[in-house]
């Protein structure tokens, strides 16, 4: 949402479907958002809402078949990534857009040393010699705060702890000085203290090297410290898109609103956590009207009849709810 910087990435009407035997799974169904240079955007939502598929679609990494990007544009630095050839998109991957994955335990190849693997993208994209690449890899390990980088360079992944591996993954993703980092649940598989360290590291790198970050997570606490804008997804669609403060304190969508209220807080005494009833809908058979309506505490007749458009509830605050504009009043009325 940041209007201050230079536009780096524009995603417009992205639709990624999976053609399965059971039917067409609309994993991503018309998602649009922007990312500026140096901006951090969080994409939140529950498992299976299309967060990761959105990220993979940007880099054209959807396994085809069964997946396919049906429609939409991914404009990165003026080029539509979805129209690039195999060779051209490989130049973008790793070189201009780095990506890190959820489970650092499995995203490193067990048979090569850490150094060898960090060196790989450097040699692929920057064409440095082995020796120069090694020097750079050691610098990168130092940048992600791995102590004794020179010694660690020669070690194998199984000799690293989870947090260290994720740091190594970040070093690998940043090895070619990309302008953008996609972090797909980078801290989910780590314990809480390490989570905080990894998020702090990503935040620091974002500021220091002016990195645009697309942070995918289902942990709202993780988002708070790093992101500037939040994109809330539900059943493959964007339901709310605004600055982090607005989504956290002045949500205009019942799903995001319920999500915020189901986060445990230290400064509030509550007997039970609020939960969102029901389960996410099947992406093959979406309920008519608003996908969230069967679980929505505020649902009215119109919700199961018409699909709400994504509208500007207030300047710079998009929400896909029939009652987005007077959400506060509407919600309060129901709650009381």
């Amino acid at each position, binding site marked *: 949402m940041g209007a201050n910087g230079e536009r780096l990435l524009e995603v417009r009407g992205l639709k990624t479907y999976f053609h399965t035997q059971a039917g067409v799974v609309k994993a991503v169904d018309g998602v649009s958002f922007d990312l500026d240079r140096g901006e951090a955007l969080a994409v939140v939502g529950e498992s299976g809402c299309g967060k990761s598929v959105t990220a993979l679609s940007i880099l054209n990494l959807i396994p085809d078949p069964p997946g396919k990007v049906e429609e939409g544009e991914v404009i990165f630095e003026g080029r539509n990534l979805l129209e690039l050839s195999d060779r051209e998109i490989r130049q973008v991957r790793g070189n201009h857009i780095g990506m890190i994955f959820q489970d650092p335990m499995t995203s*490193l190849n067990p048979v090569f040393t850490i150094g060898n693997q960090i060196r790989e993208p450097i040699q692929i994209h920057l064409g440095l010699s082995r020796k120069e690449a090694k020097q750079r890899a050691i610098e990168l390990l130092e940048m992600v705060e791995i102590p*004794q980088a020179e010694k660690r360079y020669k070690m*194998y992944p199984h000799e690293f702890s989870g947090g260290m591996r994720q740091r190594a993954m970040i070093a690998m993703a940043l090895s070619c000085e990309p302008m953008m980092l996609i972090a797909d649940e980078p801290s989910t598989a780590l314990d809480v203290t390490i989570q905080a360290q990894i998020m702090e590291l990503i935040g620091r790198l974002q500021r220091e090297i002016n990195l645009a970050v697309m942070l995918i997570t289902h942990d709202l606490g993780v988002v708070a410290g790093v992101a500037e804008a939040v994109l809330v997804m539900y059943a493959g669609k964007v339901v709310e898109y605004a600055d982090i403060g607005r989504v956290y304190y002045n949500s205009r969508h019942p799903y995001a609103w319920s999500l915020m209220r189901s986060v445990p807080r230290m400064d509030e005494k509550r007997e039970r956590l609020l939960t969102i009833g029901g389960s996410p809908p099947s992406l093959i058979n979406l309920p008519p009207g608003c996908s969230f309506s069967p679980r929505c505490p505020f649902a009215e007749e119109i919700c199961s009849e018409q699909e709400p458009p994504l509208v500007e509830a207030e300047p710079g605050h998009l929400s896909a709810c029939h009652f987005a504009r007077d959400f506060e009043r509407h919600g309060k009325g129901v709650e009381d």
Partner: protein
Amino acid sequence: MRLPDHGGPEDLMPGKEQPDLLGPEIEEFELELEKEQIHGRTALWSDVWYRLRHNKLAIVGIVIIIVLFLVAIFAPLLATHDPLYSPLYDSTVSSAEKAGAVKQTPNSEHWLGTDQLGRDIYSRLVHGSRVSVEVGIVAVLISLLIGLLFGALAGYFGGWGDSVIMRSADIFFAFPTVLGAIVIMTVLGPGLINVFIAIGVLGWATIARIFRSSILSVKENEYVEAARAMGASHARIIWKHIMPNSIQPIIVYATMGVGGAILAEAWLAFLGLGQQLPAPSWGNMLSEYLVYYTTDPWMMFIPGTAIVLSVLAFILLGDGLRDALDPRLKGSV
């Protein structure tokens, strides 16, 4: 009641003199420990060699294989006679001498005796080892080349190419190797080069199948996706990220396959399709000597034993490698 003086939390407050906790020394010590672990534990191949060394049968296999290779390499030096020289066709040898020269039992002049044409069996055996070693290596290399290529294409890319490749492999499976080889040899004609081709081509299907299934599981790993996200090409991903993680069953199978190829060559030579007489190979020696099994049975046991021992050696080594490469397979070794 007063508690004994343990030193309260205020002792740990900043500003208070801290005892030296040996920080750097401990770190130094841990470093040493890690270094030891790296060299003692992490290198896959030294690990494999360690486990192999403690497997007696595998060592027997390795020793036989080394001897076999040395014999094949130094055959001209080790042979005591010309393997093709037959006194029967030598006009300078008298008829009486000719009669005494054939089918001699082992003696100091002819270590393993002489055959029905008076040729030195030991020298023929030594020269024949070359054929077996060549067939074993070349045929398996051909199988590997075709099998790995098609296995990788089928496993990595999937789709209709996978179906076409694996159904073709099924067709090859339908033929018993020797029968298939006979068919190919009949088309190509007898001769050693054609033996390489026949055995090699027939072996690809198993290797392709093993490699494909191994790739199918390895390619789902996140590090493969991570490599794709870093912009690595398909060839690079297959070669660098998938191959090293899926090659172990292939190593085992290929080792045993060398034994299989030696046996198949012996079969073909036995049927007169391999190495052509008078040049010796273990298979054609066996087929020649088998004729005399009622009168001089010891003759056929000489090439027979050589074939059995070499095939067994490769199977023992392959078996040992399987255990050594996968420590989980047999509990602790």
